[in-house]
């Protein structure tokens, strides 16, 4: 059964490779508005647009990045067998029960059935850690478990294992609304992230808001600008030909505007992730989303 799913996913991956290789040359001409038609919903998702919880936020409507993509890209997220991101979700499921480290334990040893113990966890990250007195992203939380719980080495941020595990855990919250804590000790982190969001950087002298708040829905050359929401991460990007973390996406944006990016896992990117999660509060987790 599992083998069949994998074969299907692999052939989907191959199809995606072909599709995106082709798109380098022909770049399907997508005019503004074309992808704004009602193309249904992604698999496991009940809505891709929500009203903000409060009126004082910058957005009238919170919209998932899915909404801004072409029909071809959307289709890949409407059938889990065609969604190449599931290769990583499946690998994560295997890793969950794989023993590692000096204590001879796996995630399963402490957390048992992930469908019960991990449901909703991904929707609340990053989360405040009372012991460490700081917020932890899902990646950081996994590594804390690995070093302290398993006696195992940390996984690198963008490693296959980390991407698989985070995709697997976030996927267990698919369809649940993002609901990060933004008050109490998290408040200064939200503020720090907000500050980064609105600070102009790089030779092009732009902030996140210049594209993703002021100009979402418009084309910037071949790219249709989204609100830059975080609900689909880790996300399968056709451009990457693999799944990638939110912090990798941050890095790419900063490089595009000719700025020196912060490091994945840095306090700056953690703060930005917290701010984005709060900004997109209520949007459903789509992991693994498929994007351009």
């Amino acid at each position, binding site marked *: 059964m599992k083998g069949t799913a994998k074969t299907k996913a692999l052939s989907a991956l191959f199809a995606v490779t072909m599709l995106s290789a082709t798109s380098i*040359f022909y770049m399907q001409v997508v005019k503004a508005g074309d992808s704004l038609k009602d193309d249904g919903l992604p698999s496991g998702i009940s809505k891709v647009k929500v009203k903000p919880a409060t009126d004082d936020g910058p957005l009238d409507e919170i919209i998932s990045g899915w909404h801004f993509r072409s029909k071809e890209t959307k289709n890949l997220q409407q059938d889990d067998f065609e969604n190449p991101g599931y290769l990583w979700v499946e690998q994560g499921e295997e890793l969950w029960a794989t023993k590692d480290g000096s204590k001879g334990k796996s995630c399963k040893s402490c957390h048992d059935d992930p469908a019960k113990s991990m449901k909703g966890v991904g929707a609340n990250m990053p989360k405040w850690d009372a012991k460490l007195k700081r917020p932890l992203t899902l990646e950081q939380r996994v590594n804390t478990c690995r070093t302290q719980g398993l006696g195992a080495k940390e996984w690198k941020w963008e490693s296959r294992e980390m991407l698989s595990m985070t995709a697997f855990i976030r996927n267990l919250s698919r369809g649940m609304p993002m609901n990060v804590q933004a008050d109490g000790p998290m408040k200064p982190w939200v503020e720090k992230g907000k500050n980064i969001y609105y600070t102009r950087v790089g030779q092009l002298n732009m902030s996140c808001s210049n594209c993703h708040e*002021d100009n979402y829905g418009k084309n910037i*050359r071949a790219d249709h600008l989204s609100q830059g929401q975080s609900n689909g991460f880790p996300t399968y990007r056709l451009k990457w030909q693999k799944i990638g973390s939110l912090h990798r996406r941050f890095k790419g944006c900063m490089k595009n505007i000719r700025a020196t990016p912060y490091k994945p896992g840095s306090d700056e990117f953690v703060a930005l992730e917290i701010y984005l999660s709060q900004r997109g509060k209520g949007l459903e987790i789509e992991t693994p989303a498929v994007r351009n």
Partner: protein
Amino acid sequence: MKKAMHTIAVCALIGATAASSAISINDASANPVTPDKVKVVDGKIKTPLTNKPGNAADGKNWFANRKLGNCLACHVNQDMSSKPFHGEIGPAVNAVATRYSPAQLRAILVDAKSVFGDQTIMPGFYKVDPGQRVAKKFKGKTILSGQQVEDIIAYLLTLKK
């Protein structure tokens, strides 16, 4: 088949890189007015940045080049209707020569924020290190050379309808 596609893509990328690196960005001899000496007065810069008059044909190239002006990323230009992907961020540049003088175009290209205000997304193409954390590769450099700015102005002045 898949491999062949990738090989073609890689070749295309190498070709694009080679073409852009052949363009000299900092040609000091043609840049008598350094970025720090340029002053915008009433939304205008009357004196050209270089002694050599702008070349409209070159300017047309810089306008579309993704590594240089990349103006097409944000502005529709019907003069380039054969090229795909015109951006929608800024106003179309159709007939821009009928709306702005050369001195106004120079100021907009050099430092759009001094003309339209701080809120504009348009970068200053002849400014050094305008934002925080400028990448090492671009530190101390302008997006366009003075000559390239003059070339683009010459090109924009041909857009009369």
